[in-house]
C-alpha cells in the first residue's frame, strides 16, 4: 500500500513539473530589455565610482529599473521563476541604494564591488531569460 502511495505521489509530482514546464511563460522582449538595462547600467556606472553624488544617483536608478522589471514580470501568468530572479535583483540593488542612503562617504571600492555583484547577477538572469521558449 505504501509503495503504491509513493508511486502515485511520484507520478503526481513529476506530472506537475512537466505541466509547469510545458505551460511556462515564453520569451518576452521587454523582460529581456529590462534585465539587459540593469546589466549595462551597472557596467557603465563603475566609471562614476569616484564621484559619490553620481554613484548615489546610479544606485537609485538601478533600484528603480529592478523594481520596474519585477513589476513587469510578476503579473505575467506562469512566470514565477523570472519573478524570483527579478526579486533577487531588487534586493541586490536595494543594498547598494541603502548604503548610499546611510553613509555619505561610501568607498570607491565598495561601489565597484557592489556594481560587479549586480552586473554578474543580471548576466546570469539574462542568459536564462534569453533562452525562454519562443
Amino acid at each position: 500500500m505504501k509503495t503504491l502511495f509513493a508511486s502515485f505521489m511520484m507520478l503526481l509530482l513529476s506530472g506537475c513539473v512537466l505541466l509547469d514546464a510545458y505551460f511556462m511563460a515564453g520569451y518576452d522582449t521587454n523582460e529581456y530589455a529590462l534585465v539587459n538595462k540593469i546589466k549595462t547600467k551597472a557596467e557603465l556606472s563603475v566609471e562614476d565610482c569616484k564621484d559619490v553624488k553620481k554613484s548615489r544617483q546610479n544606485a537609485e536608478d538601478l533600484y528603480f529599473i529592478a523594481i520596474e522589471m519585477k513589476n513587469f514580470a510578476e503579473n505575467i501568468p506562469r512566470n514565477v521563476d523570472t519573478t524570483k530572479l527579478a526579486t533577487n535583483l531588487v534586493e541586490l540593488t536595494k543594498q547598494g541604494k541603502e548604503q548610499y542612503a546611510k553613509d555619505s562617504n561610501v568607498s570607491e571600492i565598495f561601489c565597484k564591488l557592489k556594481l560587479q555583484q549586480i552586473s554578474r547577477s543580471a548576466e546570469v538572469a539574462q542568459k536564462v531569460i534569453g533562452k525562454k521558449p519562443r
Partner: protein
Amino acid sequence: MNYLQQIAQLFEEYTFAYNARQIGPAEYKSLLEGLEIEKVVSMNAAELEYKENLNLAINTAIKAATSHLGTLQHFV
C-alpha cells in the same frame, strides 16, 4: 569554475579588502549579503534553465508524435 567556487573566491576578496581597511564594516556586511543573493540567483537561474530544457524536450516529443500521427492517418 562553478558558481560556488566563484563565491568562495569573492568572499576571500571582500575579506581581504575589509582587513586592509579598504572598505568599512557596513560595506563588508552589505557585500556579504550580496554574495548570499548571488548564490540564490544562480540557484533560481538553474531552476528556470531546467524548466526551459524540459519545455524544449516536451515540445520536440509532441512535434514528433504529431508528425507520426499524420503519417499513420495518411495510410488509413
